[in-house]
């Protein structure tokens, strides 16, 4: 009653407003973003398999270059699915098996030297995460001064060559399994449109922010730049053994996050329901503008800052760590935006626990 009296200022025609429907949003995410991203990544790993097979059949400098290009393209594609681990990806421990870095070079050398295709580590074991995936490929592939020397090395060392084949096959296998699982998981994902801690929206929002904070902000930038330690760790950057990959991979990851936030479809043709649209629907404003704009804008600012870093990340950390730190600071702003304002608006908790409240 009292509520009705207080509402004299409300719009009469919006007595009951159109509510935000989660199901179409989840459907859009599944069909236009998540599944196409996995399809694309999976086909990039197919290319990697073809290229590594060609290289192992005929270890020439040209085949080496082709293979290396296919790795970079798949590693970039990985950045688009890394935060979309929900469901099948999680079940496969996809992120741990694909991109745990820094790589454990001693273990990799040890495993690769006398590898014959059968006597390798069991890649399913968590203890082997640091000797597989892209970081291991990066170490084996990129520690050479030229394509020529690389080709000669692999022509004379069967172990490391076979180990590369196994690593690539493993990545291919993971992506195929996840993609196949999505056939059945899609329905589960879309129909789980509730608001509990285990609902799809809550999980995606948590995964997304967790990934942004732990992988993009801390893993790729903060940890190597020494934010969390009294020293810097230039060797802890992603793809340390390559020259320019670190910044390429970071840029891809940042774009993937930014586009998911704004609901841009994988093929770039659509803009659909998203965190941004949901925030706008809830009319979350910050001063003269909307929270969705503030966050979206911060993504752009972060990208611009990252573009000022022209040297490799490991070099930049050694010579001008402040550039990396200012990139970290820009990333940090959106961590706060999303973890406080956005999650409060969505009424999503960041504890991943279905615990009681009162």
């Amino acid at each position, binding site marked *: *009653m*009292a*509520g*009705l009296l*207080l*509402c004299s200022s*409300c719009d009469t025609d*919006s*007595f*009951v*407003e*159109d*509510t*935000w*429907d*989660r199901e179409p949003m989840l459907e859009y995410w599944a069909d236009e973003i998540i599944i196409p991203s996995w399809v694309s990544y999976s086909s990039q790993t197919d290319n990697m398999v073809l290229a590594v097979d060609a290289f192992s059949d005929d270890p020439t400098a040209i085949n080496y270059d082709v293979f290396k290009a296919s790795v970079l393209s798949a590693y970039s594609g990985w950045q688009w699915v890394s935060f979309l681990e929900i469901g099948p990806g999680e079940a496969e421990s996809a992120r741990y098996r694909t991109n745990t870095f820094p790589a454990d070079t001693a273990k990799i050398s040890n495993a690769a030297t006398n590898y014959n295709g059968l006597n390798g580590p069991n890649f399913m074991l968590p203890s082997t995460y640091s000797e597989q995936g892209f970081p291991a490929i990066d170490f084996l592939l990129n520690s050479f001064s030229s394509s020529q020397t690389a080709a000669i090395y692999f022509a004379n060392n069967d172990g490391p060559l076979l180990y590369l084949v196994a690593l690539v096959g493993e990545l291919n296998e993971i992506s195929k399994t996840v993609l196949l699982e999505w056939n059945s998981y899609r329905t589960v994902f879309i129909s789980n*449109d*509730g*608001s*509990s*801690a285990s*609902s799809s929206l809550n999980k995606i929002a948590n995964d997304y922010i967790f990934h942004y904070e*732990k992988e993009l902000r*801390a893993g790729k930038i*903060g940890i190597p730049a*020494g*934010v*969390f*330690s*009294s020293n810097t760790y230039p060797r802890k950057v992603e793809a340390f053994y390559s020259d320019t990959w670190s910044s390429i991979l970071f840029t891809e990851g940042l774009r993937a996050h930014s586009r998911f936030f704004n609901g841009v479809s994988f093929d770039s043709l659509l803009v659909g329901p998203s965190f941004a649209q949901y925030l706008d629907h*809830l009319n979350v404003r*910050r*001063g003269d503008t909307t929270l969705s704009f503030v966050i979206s804008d911060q993504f752009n600012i972060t990208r611009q800052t990252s573009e000022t870093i022209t040297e490799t990340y490991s070099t930049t950390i050694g010579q001008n760590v402040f550039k990396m730190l200012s990139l970290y600071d820009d990333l940090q702003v959106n*961590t*706060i*935006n999303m*973890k*406080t*304002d956005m*999650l*409060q*608006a*969505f*009424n*999503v*908790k*960041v*504890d*991943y*626990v*279905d*615990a*009681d*409240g*009162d």
Partner: protein
Amino acid sequence: MRMGISHFIQGLNKPIPATSLAVFRILFGLLMAVSMLRFTVNGWIESIYIDPSFHFSYYGLDWIKPIGIYTYVIFGICFISSITVALGYRYKLSSLVFILSFLYIEGMDKTTYLNHYYFISVMGLLLLFIPAQRAYSIDSLIGRVPSNDIPLWSLRAPQLFVCIVYFYAGLSKLNSDWLLHAQPLATWLPGKTDIPIIGHFFETPWVHYLFSWGGALYDLSIPFLLIFRRTRSFAFVLVIAFHVLTRILFPIGMFPYIMIVGAMLFFPSSSYDRWLNQFKVILKNNGNKFLLKPSNYRLNAAKYVVAVLLFFQMILPWRYLYYPGELFWTEEGFRFSWRVMLMEKQGYTIFRILDRETNKSWTAQNSMFLTPFQEKQMSFQPDMILEYVRFLEEYYCSTEGFENLEIYADSFVSLNGRPRVRFVDPTIDLTIQTDKDYRIKWLMPFNNDIQGI
């Protein structure tokens, strides 16, 4: 006047039938047993008590800690004593074991503090001092208790406690955020549009106000509606409707059922005896119908303990008046005061650690030390922030050999739908702040006004 008071106290000793209290004892015990099972089945003993390497303690109670895998034993003890309380078997011992084990569980980590656990703690303490085993119990069946009657005060005490909880919960809603801005419900309800039928209304502002005002009105009036005989049945229907609704809307576990059982205390014994008579064959009363002797000094002493306990319940919620600053911001005096579902706070807090001697500085990775649940709770609760700072200082001093570290917080909090703002003053070294300092000394000022209680 003196006559009146002594008459009143005399009246409190008047013997009354024990059934209402016994029914409450049985249902309360059973609910507690279910609670313990639920905690185990959900894996919470593992994730909340055993897994974390660091635990947040209540002031002065840091000796109460989980004991590894044996934490399960404490829950086991609490479970068994819940059952024996329900059965009324060796009731005094059972209720003592129950409350000790329950308090130990609650004391292990304040991350999990919930008002309804506090409700259970106080109710458990009350049950220790009142003779709830005088009917429908094994103790009475085998003649271990002297009488089927209980003194009136031993029913009035838990009734009064239930009234205090509701009334204070209602009082605390009389503030501008709740009444004028419908917060935090205006933040919570729009996330619940998936609920069938009613969910459709949850993005509509007038519904937020309806729920806010309705909730406050319910809390303030339900004690009176339960007390008066003529409104009691209506009140009970309201109690069930209200708590079922909150159960649907919010993840509040066992709380709705506990409050429904609490409301059952208000029905007279006769209303239960009628349908409990069928079980009389099994749970036959022992037939001793002694009147309570005035010389029952133990029970008399218990009466005063109960009176003091209830008195504190009425005083404790007001202690916030003593502290400077906004209660919702500093949370000084927030716990133990029936401020239920009152506040939506989302925080983000990280710590910069500085060694002046070497000029080295870094940020602590909270996930190294805290579970996501602990990190979430620490991020907006000042006492937990300070406790964690002390832990970090000790950790880095002992593992990395630093001697004089300074720790600063980058902390942001969003309260009841307001845009997030800085929470802790980033220029203040938190290692030199103590729990005795007022929190406004190191928190940023709250530049908003929340009027009311």
